[in-house]
C-alpha cells in the first residue's frame, strides 16, 4: 500500500521557491498499478522521485507499508554507457555484493525473458531505443522489487514496439506480483496499464482527477469499448486543463 498525503514540493528557482506539486493525495493498493499523466513540466518526474525516495516533500507525507524493495526506471539516461548490457542489468546485484554465480544466473534469465540474448557484451550506445528500454526494465527487475517505478519508459518508441513493450510490462506486473507505478504522456498507455490513473494539472501540479480503471490488466483491453470510453474521459480532462478551465 502506497499512501500519499497532502504532499507539497517546491524547487528553488534563482533563490525564489516555486511550487511544483500542490496538495497531492492518493493511494495505490498492494499489487495495484497506477498511471500518472499530465502535461509536460507539470511535475510527474518530481512526483516519481518523491515516491521512490530520491526527493523529500516540503510538507505532507508518503507512507509505504513495510519497507519494500523498489526498482526504478528513470526518464532517459538510466543506463550507464560505460557498462555492457550484462553489467548494467547486474549492477544492482553487484552493489548488494551478491555471489557471481547468483548474478550470472539471474542476469541470464532476464536477458532471455526480455529477448536480449546475444547482446550481453554490447554497450547501450550500440542498441536501439526499444532494446535500451528493455535493458532498463531488466535492470530494475534484477533485484526482484516489490514496487516498480517507471518514468516514461516507452517514450520515443514507434507505435508497434511501444505496444509490444506495454504487453511486456503488463506480463511482468502480473507474473511477478508487484505494484507498478508508471509516468506517461500517452492517454492510451495510461488506460491500458493503470488500474488507477492520476491526472495532474499544468505546473504547479495539482490532482485534476483520479480515474479508477479496473479493466487494465487484460491484454485485449485495447479493443474494448470501455477502453475508448476511458480514453475519452482522460482526453476531456486534459483538454479542459489546456483551455484553462478547472475540471
Amino acid at each position, binding site marked *: 500500500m502506497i499512501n500519499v498525503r497532502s504532499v507539497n514540493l517546491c524547487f528553488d528557482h534563482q533563490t525564489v521557491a516555486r511550487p511544483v506539486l500542490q496538495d497531492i493525495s492518493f493511494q495505490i493498493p498492494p499489487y495495484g498499478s497506477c498511471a500518472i499523466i499530465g502535461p509536460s513540466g507539470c511535475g510527474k518526474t518530481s512526483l516519481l522521485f518523491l515516491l521512490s525516495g530520491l526527493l523529500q516533500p516540503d510538507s505532507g507525507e508518503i507512507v509505504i507499508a513495510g519497507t519494500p524493495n523498489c526498482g526504478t526506471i528513470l526518464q532517459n539516461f538510466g543506463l550507464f554507457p560505460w557498462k555492457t548490457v550484462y553489467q548494467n542489468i547486474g549492477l544492482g546485484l553487484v552493489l548488494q555484493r551478491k555471489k557471481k554465480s547468483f548474478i550470472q544466473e539471474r542476469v541470464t534469465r532476464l536477458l532471455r525473458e526480455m529477448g536480449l540474448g546475444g547482446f550481453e557484451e554490447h554497450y547501450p550506445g550500440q542498441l536501439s531505443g526499444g532494446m535500451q528500454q528493455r535493458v532498463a526494465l531488466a*535492470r530494475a527487475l534484477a533485484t526482484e522489487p516489490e514496487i516498480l517505478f517507471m518514468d516514461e519508459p516507452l517514450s520515443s518508441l514507434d507505435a508497434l514496439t511501444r505496444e509490444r513493450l506495454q504487453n511486456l510490462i503488463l506480463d511482468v506486473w502480473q507474473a511477478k506480483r508487484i505494484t507498478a507505478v508508471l509516468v506517461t504522456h500517452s492517454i492510451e498507455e495510461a488506460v491500458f496499464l493503470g488500474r488507477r490513473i492520476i491526472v495532474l494539472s499544468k505546473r504547479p501540479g495539482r490532482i485534476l482527477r483520479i480515474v479508477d480503471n479496473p479493466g487494465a490488466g487484460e491484454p485485449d483491453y485495447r479493443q474494448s469499448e470501455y477502453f475508448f470510453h476511458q480514453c475519452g474521459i482522460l482526453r476531456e480532462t486534459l483538454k479542459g486543463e489546456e483551455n484553462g478551465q478547472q475540471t
Partner: protein
Amino acid sequence: MGSKRDIFIAALILLGLWELSALLLDSIALPEPWLVVKDIGRKLADGSLLDDLAISAARALLGILLALTAAVPLGLAVGAEESLRRRISPFIYLLYPIPHVVLLPLIIILFGIGNFSKIFLIALVVFFQILVTTRDAAKDINRNYFYAMQTLGASRWQMYVHVIMPASIPKIMTAMRISVGTSVAILFFVESFATTRGLGYIIMDSWGRSDYVSLYTGIGSMAMLGFSFYLILDRIEKRLCRWTPS
C-alpha cells in the same frame, strides 16, 4: 591517431620540409635530415643512444605516473564533492598559473640534484594539468547517473567505482596526452643541468660542442620518445574506453 600509412606520409612530408629548409638556409645550425637519420641509426645500432633514451623515458614516465596517482584521486574527489570543490578550487586557481619550473631551486634544496628532483619537477607540472581536467570531468557528470545509482542502493564509494571514475576516464586520457607533450619539454629543461645522461644532456652537450648533427639526433630522439608514449596511450585508451563511439 590515424592509420600507420597516414603517420608515415606525415613523417615523409616533415622530412621533406626539413630538407628544403636546410637547403635554402644553408647553415650549419640546420643540417640535412639524412645526416641526422644516419647518425640516429648508427647510435641506435651501437647502443650509445639507447642508454640516454631509456633514462629520459624513465624520468618522464615516472614523473607522469607520480602525477597521475596524486592528481586523479584528488581531482575526482574535488570534482564530485561540492564541499571539497568550494574549499580546494581557489587553491588550484592560485597555484595552477604559476610557471612551476621556477621552483627548481627550491626542489634542488629539498631533494638534491639527483634523479628524484628531475622526476619531481616533471610530476609537479603535469600534476596540475591532470588535476584540473579530472576535476572538471568529475564535476560535469550528468546527475541522472547519480539518481540511477541511488535507486540501486549505491554507497558513496560505489558511486566512485561505477560512475565517477569511468565517466571521467575519457577526459583523463585527453589530459594524459597533453601531459606527454609537457613532460618531454620539461625533460629537456631538467636534463640540461647536473647530469651527463639523457636526451636533454645530449642536446645541451652537442650545442656546446657545436656538433649540430648530434644536436638534432637528440631532438629527433625526443620526438620518437613522445611518439612512443602516444602509441602506448592509444593502446590503453582503446582498452579502457571501448564504450565511447570512436
